[in-house]
Structure formats: structure tokens, C-alpha cells
């Protein structure tokens, strides 16, 4: 049985009884979607953010770094770095310290970039929303796609010999930081119950912080659901599975948004006939390829590395879009 059935009942009750709207009108459809989706996503966000707070407590970024430093993984480290990118919360403010921190620890450039690529593409919040809007199976494919882009992108970039294309001042920092130990530690001994509370606080903080973006995204999505006719985009995107993917990717670059705001819009577009791969590419490009992100990274990378980085990620996103359009969901 659908565990969210009570939420649907509530949305129906509010829409048709409390607000007294006639069923099957544009407005009531949009409102119904809005209530249902926002409550459902809110619940999922709370649960997943809680789980992720636990994981993060036991696997902090420092541990991931040490883990990747200690062993030679024969290519498996690309996968691990990329997978770790999924569970790490990502704020673009952290991307440079993280980038330099990984390199300082002696992690190869390619592996570091694998982590950096996947981190914004897939994160806990986007997973929660994907589950809510697309179901488990598609969520799993989305996560795998994100990890795959990071892995392959990191691997390709690692083979391009770009190790020297890093900001000169930071290169010195990397050299001097090698063989040096981290000089901070946080108290780790906490009782079980205070930990449970800590996880809750952390999850709740995160949920609060992003929920406004979710509401905006769900709001726009609900309008599309209610007012745009079924199959609207199919008319324009007829046989568009091919060219619409690169177009959507390029169009998304100037847009800078949080993944959590884009996914509900993406889902609404898909339900109106936009091919799934096209919508996925659009969403990934919005979060993974943005100008503000490029400006931040510019402080650490020389132009050649920056351009290569963005080119490889763009190609990866386009390929994933085609892959979904042609092989998976036709």
C-alpha cells in the first residue's frame, strides 16, 4: 500500500472540502498537487536528513580523506570518491577548502575531481525529493547516473595531465601542508541520547534551510501540473529526444538554483511530455554547472583546468540525458 495515502486523503480533504474547490479544475488540481507534494517531501526530507546526519557523524569528510589517502585502489577510488560525494552535504563555499584539502592529503587530482563533480549533482535532499516525486527505481538510477558522471569525469580529467594547473599560491600551500597533521579535534564522547538529539537538530536545521526552495519548486511544479495541458511539450519536442538534451544542458548553465527547487519543476515537465533524460540533464546542469560555482573555483584552478572541468562535466551530463532518453525510459 502507498504509505503516503493519508497525505493524499488530507490533500483531497483540504482542497475539496475546506477550500471548497470543484474537482478537476485547473486551480484545484494545482492546489491538490501543492499540498500533497509539499507534505510528502517534507516528511521524506526529515527522515533522510536524519539518516544522513548519522552517517556524517560516523564518516566525516576528514575520515573520507584519510580513507582515500591510505590505499591504492586501482581505479576503485574513483568510485569511492564519487560515492562519498553523495553523502557529503554540499555548499559551494566548501568546494575550495575541500579541493585543496584533498590534494594536500595526496589524493590524486582525478579522484578529487570525481568527488567534486558528484557532490552537487546528487545529495541527500535531492534524493529525498526524487523518491517523493519519481519513486525508488528512478531515484536509484539517478543516483547511479550521478556517481557515474563523477567517476568517469574524474577519471578522464585525471588522465589529462592537469596537475600543474592550480593556482600558484595554493600550490605552495598544498606542498607545505603535506605530511602535516590536522590540528583540530572536536569532542567526540557523547551519550547516546544527546547524539540522537544532535542528529535531530542537524537534520531539522537542514530541512528548515532548504524547505523554502522546495516550496517554491513545488509551487511552480503544481502550476504546471494544473494549468499546462497533458502532452503539451510532446508537440514541440517531437523526436526531440536527441537535440533537446544538449539544448536543455546549455540553457541551464546561466540558471543557478538549488537541486531541491528544480526537481519538482522537472517532474512536472516530465508529466507533461518532456523526455525524462532531457529534464534530468536540465536539472543536473542547473546545479552542477553554474557561473557562481565557476567563479569560486576560479580562485583555485587555472583557466585550463577550469575549462576542462566544465567541459567534461557538460559532456557527462549530456551523455546521461541521452542514455536515459534512448535506453531506459522509452
Amino acid at each position: 500500500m502507498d504509505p503516503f495515502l493519508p497525505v493524499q486523503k488530507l490533500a483531497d480533504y483540504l482542497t475539496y472540502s475546506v477550500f471548497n474547490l470543484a474537482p478537476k479544475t485547473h486551480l484545484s488540481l494545482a492546489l491538490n498537487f501543492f499540498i500533497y507534494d509539499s507534505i510528502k517531501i517534507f516528511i521524506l526530507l526529515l527522515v533522510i536528513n536524519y539518516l544522513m546526519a548519522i552517517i556524517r557523524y560516523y564518516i566525516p569528510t576528514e575520515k573520507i580523506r584519510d580513507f582515500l589517502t591510505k590505499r591504492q585502489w586501482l581505479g576503485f577510488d574513483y568510485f569511492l570518491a564519487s560515492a562519498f560525494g553523495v553523502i557529503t552535504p554540499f555548499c559551494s563555499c566548501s568546494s575550495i577548502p575541500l579541493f585543496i584539502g584533498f590534494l594536500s592529503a595526496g589524493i590524486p587530482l582525478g579522484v578529487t575531481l570525481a568527488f567534486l563533480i558528484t557532490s552537487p549533482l546528487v545529495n541527500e535532499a535531492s534524493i529525498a525529493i526524487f523518491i517523493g516525486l519519481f519513486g525508488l527505481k528512478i531515484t536509484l538510477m539517478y543516483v547511479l547516473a550521478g556517481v557515474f558522471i563523477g567517476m568517469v569525469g574524474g577519471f578522464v580529467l585525471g588522465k589529462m595531465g592537469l596537475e600543474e594547473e592550480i593556482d600558484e599560491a595554493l600550490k605552495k600551500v598544498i606542498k607545505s601542508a603535506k605530511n602535516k597533521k590536522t590540528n583540530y579535534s572536536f569532542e567526540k564522547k557523547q551519550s547516546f541520547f544527546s547524539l540522537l538529539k544532535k542528529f535531530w537538530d542537524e537534520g531539522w536545521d537542514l530541512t528548515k534551510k532548504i524547505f523554502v526552495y522546495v516550496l517554491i519548486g513545488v509551487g511552480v511544479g503544481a502550476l504546471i501540473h494544473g494549468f499546462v495541458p497533458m502532452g503539451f511539450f510532446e508537440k514541440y519536442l517531437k523526436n526531440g529526444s536527441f537535440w533537446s538534451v544538449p539544448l536543455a544542458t546549455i540553457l541551464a548553465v546561466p540558471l543557478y538554483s538549488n537541486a531541491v527547487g528544480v526537481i519538482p519543476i522537472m517532474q512536472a515537465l516530465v508529466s507533461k511530455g518532456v523526455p525524462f533524460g532531457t529534464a534530468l540533464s536540465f536539472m543536473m546542469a542547473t546545479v552542477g554547472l553554474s557561473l557562481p560555482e565557476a567563479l569560486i573555483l576560479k580562485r583555485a584552478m587555472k583557466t585550463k583546468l577550469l575549462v576542462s572541468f566544465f567541459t567534461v562535466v557538460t559532456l557527462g551530463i549530456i551523455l546521461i540525458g541521452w542514455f536515459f532518453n534512448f535506453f531506459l525510459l522509452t
Partner: protein
Amino acid sequence: MKIAVLGSGCATCKALYELTKKAVVELGLKNEVEYITDISKIIEMGVMQSPVLAINGKAVMVGFIPDVEKIKEIIKKNLTNV
């Protein structure tokens, strides 16, 4: 005691700086809060996140916490240690 906020110059880092200044005032301290955007300083502390709240050159909090009370608590705790 030196209180500093280190960041890569993003909006969140700036927000932590403002919050920390507020926390210091509310605690009745006379300290200046320094705002550092030099990334190499963050790396030297061995931290891989930003922003960072540092007291006497030691990172005491990483990541952004939008809560003045928590920041006050952390500053107070580290005051007694000095």
C-alpha cells in the same frame, strides 16, 4: 584572545561573520572579530569546510550554524579554556 571567521568569500561565510560579531557583543566581550578570506589559512588549520570559526588560530566550529546562542556557547566554552 583572537576570534576570527574564515571563509572563501561566499554569502554563508559573511553571514557567520555577522552572527559572530553579534554573539561577541551579546556576550559583552571587547574582542574584534576578524574576517579572513585567505583560503590558505583554512587549509593550514586542516579544515576542509567553510566557513570556520577560529579562536586563537584554532578551529572551534566548522560549517554554518544559523544560531547565535550556539555560537555564544562555543565562544564561552573556549574562553574558559584559555
